């Protein structure tokens, strides 16, 4: 069936809820309203208020409660309305969700899926365009996933719902309805912890994820016209990271560019560049470049185009790499 990413997400939730009655969807406006982006549309009518629960406006309690629910055998899926509002729950995530298995030596686990829309590019209000995935990629125990297409979104979310680890599932707002795609109606998994080479190329590797994949594709097409073959690695699971796929590509192409929407300093691009420098230095024909947002707060709608990387900026760095 042809559908948008947000529809694919709703379908993954519905499919797994039908299969596994331990799954409970939990969050602000996820019930009767179906979520402010409609990612939980139809679930309330189908599964009822015991399994699709509107919460009071309190993110720390939502995640905290999910831990208790999970430890007692439910499978809570918590929606945080925007990534910019996940911070009140930060303590529960860092101090508890991520480490419950470790601190109880496996007696209790918290297989909680925290879903949240993220990223700039839709001209939203202040605090609605955050892209702070790197904050969560340094927390041992947490799995961080970002889909870049409707079909991946469904398969990755399904895998997250079936897994035994807590997962932060980041949904690029910009891609929610950007395009429609054929997505199988059957439930299926796209495995976690595996990156995908979504475009092959000989000359350089672009590592990206989420809403930057279309930007990478556009840049790659433009680079092709200039004679440069860009390979694109879609990381998909940001943490734990599939370093092997990234390294294999860079060893082949000898050049790497990391593209992300978050500010440069301390972004996940640093970890990827460091890994390449550590484990593929001798394959490199040029420095690893990062194309990112600048180290500033996301500007509001009218200037956000200045903020996030576009194909033009990627292309400039591609040329730099190739001319090095």
């Amino acid at each position, binding site marked *: 069936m042809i559908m948008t990413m947000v529809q694919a997400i709703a379908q993954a939730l519905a499919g797994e809820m039908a299969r596994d009655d331990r799954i409970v969807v939990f969050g602000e*406006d996820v019930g009767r309203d179906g979520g402010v982006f409609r990612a939980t549309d139809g679930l309330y009518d189908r599964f009822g208020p015991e399994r699709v629960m509107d919460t009071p406006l*309190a993110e720390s309690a939502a995640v905290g409660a999910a831990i208790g629910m999970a430890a007692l055998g439910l499978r809570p899926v918590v929606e945080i309305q925007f990534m910019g509002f996940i911070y009140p729950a930060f303590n529960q995530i860092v101090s508890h969700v991520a480490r419950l298995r470790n601190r109880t030596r496996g007696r209790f686990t918290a297989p909680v899926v925290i879903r949240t829309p993220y990223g700039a590019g839709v001209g939203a209000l202040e605090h609605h365009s955050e892209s702070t995935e790197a904050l969560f990629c340094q927390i041992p125990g947490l799995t961080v996933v970002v889909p870049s297409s409707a079909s991946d979104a469904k398969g990755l979310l399904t895998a997250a719902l079936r897994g035994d680890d807590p997962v932060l599932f980041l949904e690029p707002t910009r891609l929610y309805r950007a395009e429609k795609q054929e997505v199988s109606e059957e439930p299926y998994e796209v495995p976690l912890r595996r990156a995908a080479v979504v475009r092959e190329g000989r000359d350089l590797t672009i590592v990206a994820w989420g809403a930057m994949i279309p930007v990478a594709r556009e840049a790659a097409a433009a680079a092709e016209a200039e004679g440069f073959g860009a390979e694109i690695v879609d990381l998909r699971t940001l943490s734990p990271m599939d370093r092997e796929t990234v390294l294999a590509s860079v060893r082949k192409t000898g050049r790497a560019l990391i593209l992300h929407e978050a500010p440069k300093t301390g972004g996940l691009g640093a970890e990827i560049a460091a890994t390449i420098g550590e484990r593929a230095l001798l394959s490199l024909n040029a420095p690893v470049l990062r194309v990112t947002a600048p180290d500033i707060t996301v500007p509001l709608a009218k*200037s956000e185009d*200045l903020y996030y990387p576009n194909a033009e900026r990627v292309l400039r760095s591609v040329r730099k790499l190739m001319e090095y």
Partner: protein
Amino acid sequence: MIERFDPLKGERLRVLDEDGRAAPDLDPGLSDAVLRALYERMVRTRTADAKALKLQRQGRLGTYAPSLGHEAAQVGLASAMTADDWFFPYFRDLGAYLTLGYPLADYFHFWMGHEAGLRTPDGLNIFPISIPVGSQIPQAVGAGIAVKSRKLRAAVVTTFGDGATSEGDFHEGLNYAGVYRTPNVFVCINNQYAISVPRSHQTAAATIAQKALAYGFPGVQVDGNDVLAVYAAAREALATARSGGGPTLIEAYTYRLGDHTTSDDAARYRAKEEVQEWVLKDPLARFRRHLALKGLWDEASEKEIQAAAADSVEKAVAEAEARPPASVDDIFAYTYAAMPPDLEIQRAELKASLPEGRR
């Protein structure tokens, strides 16, 4: 007066009945000029609000949180404040902004997607709009601590919705205020919904006002569609605060007549009949009846007021739209007091990647 209304007994402060008649023992006794001014502010608020919605539909303004139905609460509250008081607003406070003298052009400018609109003009004690729900509350309490420590004679007002009362920051902030006996006035605009979540699902407490009992200071529920009730409660709470009597929680009981924001469709989660009931309780209509009873309102004055409001709103739109978009320099300049060299490099690189006209 506040203490006469016990939220645990379900008592609510109300000055005007539906017909606009004031209860003599509660009427704040405002002059005719002030009464007229209150009404004009409410009309201007409604006019500007409607304009914002229109601009949004035309793609000239971004996602917007309308104030329809909240005019009495916003204007009543802000009209009781003085220029020395501080205001820590939330995102649905248009009437308070206008009443306090914030330029409407700036307000529109912000909602059009420019941070510059959040730069409060010098001399106005208004903190920027807080979007993360409830997060302004501890900040307002800190301001209260500063007012106290600097021995200023001022109160600090902060507004928030019924949904915000569920956040940890609401609790932590009010608890601090009780402990430090700060000059804060906490105003919960209980409009019965937090997006789609009804008030009854937000908390099992019968009223928001009674939550003040957890913090050791008074709480009162007032009719939020009654501008005089809100004014009277605010005036008393502000005076208490300024004179060292400590904080107060005011729950303004009202209703959000519009959608949550322009991205929302309230019809998905609430019944037409319910909305219709509240339309009948329109705060402007009730106050108009009061003014009419006092001989302060007629069709002719209404026309004038409406025309003046429309005119000032149009001017503000024109002014906001005439402003240039933020430059690269602008979005970089305020990150630190002094720009680090790396950021200068990033700024230069960004400029180099942009066409002349968009730097």
